């Protein structure tokens, strides 16, 4: 199966007539990305589209124009993890910073938490596990990007315990 120019044209026509937000399709290395919104500009009447031709089979083509989802840009991914007590994942799963898409994150760097405060969710097969801080202290790092896969025992959030 392959995507022909006429297929993409029909897709663009349909997109214009709809209230869809974003579509990212790919067939055999041909990737189509259509987004109703531009990072800076307000939603344009004409959708913004990018079509990447097939690359070498070893490296599938991707568009680089994607605007990162809000939650992901908000997360910090430090190259070095500051010292402190790590909150670790109880299972393999998906790391979520907020209780639902669009909701504010459970915690931000710099925020003070108590032992038992929910700092994130690890989702595994539709089971939402709330992960809590083990100690009272200050969040010094959020190690994982929102919506990323994590392994069991992987450090998710680092807390510098209160002096005392």
């Amino acid at each position, binding site marked *: 199966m392959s995507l022909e120019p006429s297929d993409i044209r029909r897709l663009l026509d349909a997109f214009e*007539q709809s209230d869809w*937000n974003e579509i990212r*399709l*790919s067939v055999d290395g041909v990737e189509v990305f259509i987004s109703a919104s531009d990072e800076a500009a307000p939603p344009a009447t004409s959708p913004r589209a990018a079509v990447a031709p097939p690359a070498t089979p070893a490296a599938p083509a991707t568009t680089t124009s994607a605007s990162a989802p809000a939650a992901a840009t908000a997360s910090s991914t430090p190259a070095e993890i500051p010292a402190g007590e790590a909150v670790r994942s109880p299972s393999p799963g998906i790391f979520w910073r907020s209780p639902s898409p669009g909701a504010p994150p459970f915690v931000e760097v710099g925020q003070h938490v108590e032992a038992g405060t929910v700092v994130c969710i690890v989702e595994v*097969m539709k089971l939402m596990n709330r992960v809590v801080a083990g100690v009272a202290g200050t969040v010094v790092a959020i190690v994982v990007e929102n919506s990323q896969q994590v392994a069991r025992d992987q450090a998710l959030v680092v807390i510098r315990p209160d002096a005392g």
Partner: protein
Amino acid sequence: MRPRPLRRVLIANRGEIAVRIARACFDEGLECVAAVSEADRDSLAARLADGAICIGSAAATASYLNIGAVVGAAIAARCDAIHPGYGFLSERAELAQACAEHGITFVGPPAAVIRRGGDKVAARRAARALGIPVGEGSDAIASVAEAGRIAADIGYPVLLKAAAGGGGRGMVQVRREAELEEAFLRASTEAQQAFGDGTLFLERYVTNARHVEIQVLADGHGQVVHLGERDCSCQRRYQKLVEEAPAAAVPAHLRAALGEAAVRLARALDYVGAGTMEFLVDLDREAFSFLEVNTRVQVEHPVTELVSGIDIVRQQLRIAGGDALGFTQDDVALRGHAVEVRINAEQPAQDFLPSPGRIERWTLPQGEGVRVDTHCHEGYVVGAHYDSMVAKLICHGASRAEALDRLYRALGHVRIEGIATTVPLLRDLVGHGDFRADRINTRWLEDHFLPAWTAAPGRTGVAA
């Protein structure tokens, strides 16, 4: 839009139901294209289909729940129909609406029917108007105070339920008046979070209840038939573990009444396609009450297929293509008994902890009256993004006893390594005296079977 024969179907789902739809398309002589997330690019459905199109990243919100991506994929891949399977977008009227707007056939009821059926309060109102019992419950409740008045009237225990809900979310049992306020707030919050609508209703809680549902098929030419009932009373946290057809524990006159009620309700809703009417049967009082309509194919549809000989997914495709049903209610003959178990990647002894991982060994039994619906195979990686069901094992026999014997033996021949599964639990369940004798209700699994099973020596700490 006037229906037209289908040619090429987009499978807008994943897992075993995507494989099931690919098979139905093959059988109907239709082409199909699998819409897959990045995690499912190499899935069995993608391989069985005539083509595959990736519709976004592994997170369902970016792919299987993205209406634009699904409809756009159908357009780009030159599909003239979309089969939504179950779960994901299958009961979202917006998808049916978007299909209609873009000239694509939605394999399911029209958007208006999904809206009517999916709104529990509206569906109950429709049932009540037809004289179908809807339980001693209420319409939408405005406040805790109103809930208190109604509960006092019908008597505790009662059940609070989300009007827009399903799958047990937004559903809270209230044993006495003192619990009501806290329960109301909890149910309402859950309903708001899960469905974007906190509206609740309330109904009498039945102690000795069976969950019984009727499979309905309705074509666009006024013909509505039912294919008998399924008993899905073996539930944990409102998730079904075992389903069977027929509901042998329910008296025949009640089953006949359920079938008749389901057909009348489908007619009243102008139903088109395959649908399921769920009922609660009170075994003590020999009475039933309507619960809700599911406007899609169900996970447990195979038990009905095995006893009726009618392929429900193929019927969905034919109805969507404008065909009239080729049979009447009188032609539907149910034969024998069928039982399905859901094999999940979970550790039942560890509170059903999900068990993702790579399947190192995967051998399922083969035999007469043994059906396996699955998307898994050796080397398949069960990921964390989607639900934990890895296979359905369905056995058919001339009698319930024969079907259960076959299922018990078949479960003994399942060899899965690399992930933990619910197989050991299911085998013990199917072999349990209460279950064999059909002396259970919707609380049996959680209140009787599981506590004893979990407490059995050597159970904990062992990855089944």
